[in-house]
C-alpha cells in the first residue's frame, strides 16, 4: 500500500484525537476534584470537532489518511491510519461520550462541601480513558498498539461497572475483568504468532504478507476468540448482563453502545483488513452461526426479564449477534451491501442502545425502580422518556424509518443476493422477538393505570437521550454517499 509510506495531509489530526482524551485524563488526575468534570466536559466537544475534521479529510482525499509516528514508516515505526469506518466510528464515539458526559453531570458532580469524591473522580477519568482507548482502536495500525488500547479499554470499563461500590456490582465487575483477561491472553498469543511468522504487526504490511498457513490460522483463531470474549458474543456473554445492568446509566450507555463495539471493530480489522485475501468462508459461517444463536437466545431471554435494565442488556447480547452476520454477508460477490449493513448495525445499535440506557436510568430515578411489571401508566408521567424508548425500540425492531431498519433491510438484501438464505431467518426472527420485548415495555407504560413520580426527571437528561435516538432514526435516511464513505480504504478481494 503506497499510502503507508508517508504522512498525509490532516494526519496530525489522528495524533490530536488520541492526545486530547489522554491529556484530559492525566490533567484530571493532577488537580482532581471538580476540575476533572470540567476538563471532561470541555474536551468532549473538541473531540467531536476533531472527529468531524478527520471525517472531512478522509472524505476529501477519498483514501485513508495516515500519520507516521516519529516519521518512521512501518515495520520500524508505527502508523496511525483513519479510513472510512474509522472516521465514522470516531464521530460516533465522540457523540456518545459527549452525550454521556453531559447526561452524567447531575449524578457525578462533586457534591457541595466536598473537595473531591471517589465516584465522581473515577467516573470522569474513566470516561476519558475509555474514549482514549476507543480512539486508539479506531485509528491504530499496529496490532500490539491495539492490544494496549484493548487493555486500556477493559481496565477503564471495569471501574465504571462497580463505581457505586455495591457488592453485586463489584462481583459483576470482577467477572467482567477476569473474563476479559482470558480474552486478552488469547488475543496476545495470536499477536505473538503473527509477529513470529511475519516479523511485523502493521496491519497493511501483514495484509500483504499473510498466507494460508497453519500459523496464521492459529493466530487468527486465537485473536478472534479473544475479541469475541471481549465483545460478549453468545455463549461468551457471561459478564455482560450483570455488568451492563448494574452500572450507572451513563456508564451502561457507553459500555453497551461503544465498548463492545471496540473489540468488534478489531475483529473486523482482522478479517477484512489483514486476512481478506484468504479463503475464510467457513470461518465466516461459524461466526454467523454464533451470531444467529446470540440473536435468538439473547432476544428470548430479554423477553423474560423482570427488570428493564436487564432486558436492555440482553437486547445488547442479541444485537451483538447481528453484528457477526457481517462476516458471511460481506465476503463474496455482493460484499458491499453486507458491509454497509454491518456498519449501519453498529451505528444504529450504538445510538439507540445508549439512548435506551439513558432512558432506563431516568426512569429508574423518577419511579424509584425499574420493574417492568410496575410501569403501568408511566408514559403519561414521563412522556419524553417513553418517546425515546419507543423510537429506540423502533430501531431495534427494524421498523422504518430508522438505522435499525436500514441495517436489516441491507442484511436481507445481502443474504438474498449471495444466496445465503439461511441468515434471513435469524434476521427476521430477531426483529419479531425485539418487537416482543419492546411491546412488553410500552404496553403497560401506555395503559390507563395511575403511577406517581418519586422524583421529577431532569429535562436536560431527557433531551440528551432523545437526541441520541433522533440520530438512530436519522441514520435511516443515510444517503448512498454515506455508504460509499464507509468503503474508503477497505481492501476488496481481487483489487489490491
Amino acid at each position, binding site marked *: 500500500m503506497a499510502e503507508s509510506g508517508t504522512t498525509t495531509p490532516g494526519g496530525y489530526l489522528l495524533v490530536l484525537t488520541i492526545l486530547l482524551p489522554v491529556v484530559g485524563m492525566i490533567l484530571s488526575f493532577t488537580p482532581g476534584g471538580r476540575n476533572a468534570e470540567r476538563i471532561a466536559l470541555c474536551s468532549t466537544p473538541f473531540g467531536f470537532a476533531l472527529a468531524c475534521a478527520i471525517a472531512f479529510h478522509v472524505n476529501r482525499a477519498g483514501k485513508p489518511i495516515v500519520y507516521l509516528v516519529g516519521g518512521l514508516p512501518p515495520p520500524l515505526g508505527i502508523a496511525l491510519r483513519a479510513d472510512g469506518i474509522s472516521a465514522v466510528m470516531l464521530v460516533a464515539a465522540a457523540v456518545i461520550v459527549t452525550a454521556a458526559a453531559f447526561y452524567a453531570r447531575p449524578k457525578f458532580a462533586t457534591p457541595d462541601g466536598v473537595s473531591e469524591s471517589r465516584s465522581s473522580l473515577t467516573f470522569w477519568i474513566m470516561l476519558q480513558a475509555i474514549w482514549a482507548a476507543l480512539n486508539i482502536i479506531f485509528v491504530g495500525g499496529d496490532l500490539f498498539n491495539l492490544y494496549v488500547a484493548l487493555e486500556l479499554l477493559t481496565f477503564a470499563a471495569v471501574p465504571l461497572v462497580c463505581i457505586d461500590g455495591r457488592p453485586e456490582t463489584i462481583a459483576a465487575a470482577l467477572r467482567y475483568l477476569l473474563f476479559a483477561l482470558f480474552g486478552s491472553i488469547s488475543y496476545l498469543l495470536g499477536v505473538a504468532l503473527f509477529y513470529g511468522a511475519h516479523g511485523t504487526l502493521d496491519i497493511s504490511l501483514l495484509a500483504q504478507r499473510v498466507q494460508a498457513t*497453519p500459523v496464521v490460522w492459529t493466530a487468527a483463531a486465537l485473536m478472534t476468540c479473544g475479541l469475541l470474549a471481549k465483545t460478549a458474543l453468545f455463549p461468551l456473554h457471561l459478564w455482560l*448482563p450483570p455488568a451492563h445492568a448494574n452500572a450507572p446509566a451513563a456508564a451502561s450507555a457507553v459500555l453497551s453502545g461503544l465498548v463492545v463495539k471496540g473489540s468488534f471493530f478489531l475483529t473486523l480489522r482482522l478479517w477484512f483488513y489483514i486476512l481478506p485475501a484468504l479463503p475464510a468462508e467457513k470461518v465466516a459461517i461459524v461466526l454467523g452461526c454464533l451470531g444467529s444463536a446470540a440473536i435468538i437466545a439473547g432476544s*428470548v431471554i430479554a423477553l423474560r426479564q423482570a427488570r428493564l435494565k436487564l432486558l436492555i442488556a440482553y437486547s445488547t447480547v442479541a444485537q451483538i449477534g447481528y453484528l457477526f452476520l457481517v462476516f458471511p454477508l460481506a465476503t463474496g460477490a455482493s460484499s458491499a451491501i453486507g458491509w454497509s449493513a454491518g456498519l449501519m448495525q453498529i451505528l444504529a445499535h450504538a445510538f439507540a442502545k445508549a439512548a435506551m440506557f439513558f432512558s432506563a436510568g431516568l426512569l429508574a430515578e423518577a419511579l424509584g425502580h425499574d420493574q417492568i411489571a410496575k410501569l403501568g401508566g408511566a408514559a403519561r408521567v414521563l412522556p419524553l422518556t417513553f418517546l425515546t424508548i419507543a423510537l429506540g425500540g423502533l430501531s431495534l425492531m427494524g421498523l422504518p424509518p430508522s438505522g435499525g431498519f436500514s441495517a436489516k433491510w441491507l442484511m436481507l438484501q445481502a443474504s438474498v443476493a449471495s444466496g445465503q438464505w439461511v441468515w434471513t431467518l435469524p434476521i427476521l426472527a430477531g426483529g419479531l422477538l425485539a*418487537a416482543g420485548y419492546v411491546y412488553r415495555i410500552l404496553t403497560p407504560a401506555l395503559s390507563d393505570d395511575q403511577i406517581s413520580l418519586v422524583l421529577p426527571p431532569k429535562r436536560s437528561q431527557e433531551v440528551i437521550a432523545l437526541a441520541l435516538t433522533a440520530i438512530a432514526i436519522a441514520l435511516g435516511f443515510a444517503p448512498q454517499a454515506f455508504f460509499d464513505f464507509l468503503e474508503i480504504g477497505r481492501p476488496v478481494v481481487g483489487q489490491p
Partner: protein
Amino acid sequence: MTDLPSTLLVASLATPLAFLGACFVEGWRRHALALQWLAPVPSLATGLVGLIRAPLVCDLPVLDFTLRLDPPGALLLTGAALLWIVFSAAIWRDRPPDNRFGLSWLLTMTGNIGVFVAGDLVSFYLFYALVSIPAYGLFAFSDDREQKRSGAIYMAFTILGEAILLLAFAMLVTGEPLGSTRIVDAMAALPSSPWRDATLGLIVAGFGMKLGMVPFNGWMPLTYSAAPIPAAALLSGAGVKAGVIGLIRFLPLGIPMEGWGDSLVVLGFLSAFYGVAFGLTQQNPKVILAYSSISQMGVIAAVLGIALAKGEADGALDAAFYAANHLLVKAALFLAIGVLATRDAATPVLAVPLALSLAGLPFTGGALAKLATKAQFASGSVAALATLSSIGTALLMTHFLICFAVPSSRAAQECPSALVRFWPAAALGAILLPWAFYPVVGNASYAFEIGNLVDGLWPVALGMGLAFVLRRVRFAPHVPVGDSIVLEEAAFRRLLGIGPSLEKLDARLRQWPMAGISLLLIILALLTASVSGS
C-alpha cells in the same frame, strides 16, 4: 416539482405530517388533534384529480422517494380520505380528544393515505407499518382482558406480516438488476427474477394477513369487536384496504401467471365462504361484520387471482372499485350499529339496503361492484362460485340485520352523537357514491339492464330466504370469536415453553467452567473451519 400532480401528492402527505409535528408542541396539540379532519382534505383532492388524470407521479429529490398514484390507488384514496374526514370531524365534536387515542388516529390516517401514494418500496413499507401498528392504540389500551388479548393478537399478526413483507421487498430489490427501489421497476423485473416464486409467496402471505385471509383470519373478528365503533369503521373500511392496494401493487398483473393466479383464486374463495360460514355462528353484530370483511376480502383476492392468471392488468381497477365500495359500506354498517343503539336516529331502516349492497342488491353501489368484477367472473366455475358467494353474503348480512336489531348499551357509548346525526347522509352516501365513481371503471347504465337486475336480485332474495330458514332451524353451533385463533394461541403458548428452557441454558452457559469450555470450543471451531476451508 412545481406542477399540479407533484404539489397534490406532496401536499397529501405533508398535511398529515404537519399535524403530526404540531402534536409535539404542547400548546398546539389539542388543536391539531381536534382539527385533524382537515389533514386528509388534500388527499381527497389528490384522489379526485387522480381519477381523471392518473397516473400522477412525483420524484422527490431526496433519498429516492417516489410518490405515484394510479387509477386503482386514486379510487381507494378518494374513498379513504372521505371516510377519515367524516369520522375525524364527527368524533370530537362533543368531547376533546384523548391524546393517546388522537395520536394513534392521526398516525393511522397518515399511514393510510401514504400506502396509496407511495411509489417506492421503502416508503410503502413505512406507510404500511404506519397504518398497521399505531392502530393498536385505537382499541387496545384498556384494562379489559379481552381487549388486551385482542391487541396482543393484532400486534402479533401485524408484526409477523411486516417481517414477511420485509423479506419479500428485499427480494424485489435484489431481483431488480439496477437495484431500483421504485415499485414500478421492481415489478417489471419480477417475472424474470430468480426468486420470483418465493417473492410472490411471501407477498401473498404478507398481505393475506392484513386481509384476514384463511388461515390468518383470527385477529380480525377479535380486533373489530374490541375496537370502539368509529375505530372499527375506519379499520375495516379504510385500514384493511392497505392490504388490497398491496396485492394490487405487488402482484405482477399483466403477465399471465396461471399457477399463482389459480392458487389465489382458490385461497380467495376459501376465505369468502369461510367468512360466511363462521360469521353465521356469531351473534355480536360487530363480529359478524368482521367475518363479512374476511369474506369480502376473499372475493377481492379471487378477482385479483383471476386477473393474474389471465394476465389482465385491468383487473386491478375492478378489484379496487369492489374494494372502494366495501370501504364505504362497511364503515357505514359499523356506524349503523351505534345508531341503532342510541335510538334517536330517524332512519335505521337504511341499514337494510346498505347491508345487502355487499351482496350486490340492484340500484346500490354493490350492484356496480358486481358489475365491475363481471369481466373476471365471466364464465365457468368461477361464475358459479361468485354467485354462490353473493348468496352467502346476502345470507350473512340478513343474519347481521337480525342480530343487529338487538342493540347493546356499549355500542351507544362508543358512538359519538355527532356521528349518529350524520347517519342518514353516511348511509345514502355509501349506497349512492359508487355511482359517481363508476365511470372510471365502465358504463353504469348496464346496471339497469333487465338481465343484470335479475342477476343481482335473485341471489339476494335466495340468501335472505335461507337466513330465515336457518333462523327457524335454530342451527347455531358455538364457535369462539376468531375461530382458529384459539388453536393458534395454544400453539403459541407451547412455543413460549422455549423461554424457561433457554433461560436455564443461559444460566448454565454463564457459569465459569462452561464459559471456559465455550472459549476453547470456539477456538477449535474457528481453527477447524479455517484449516478445512483453505
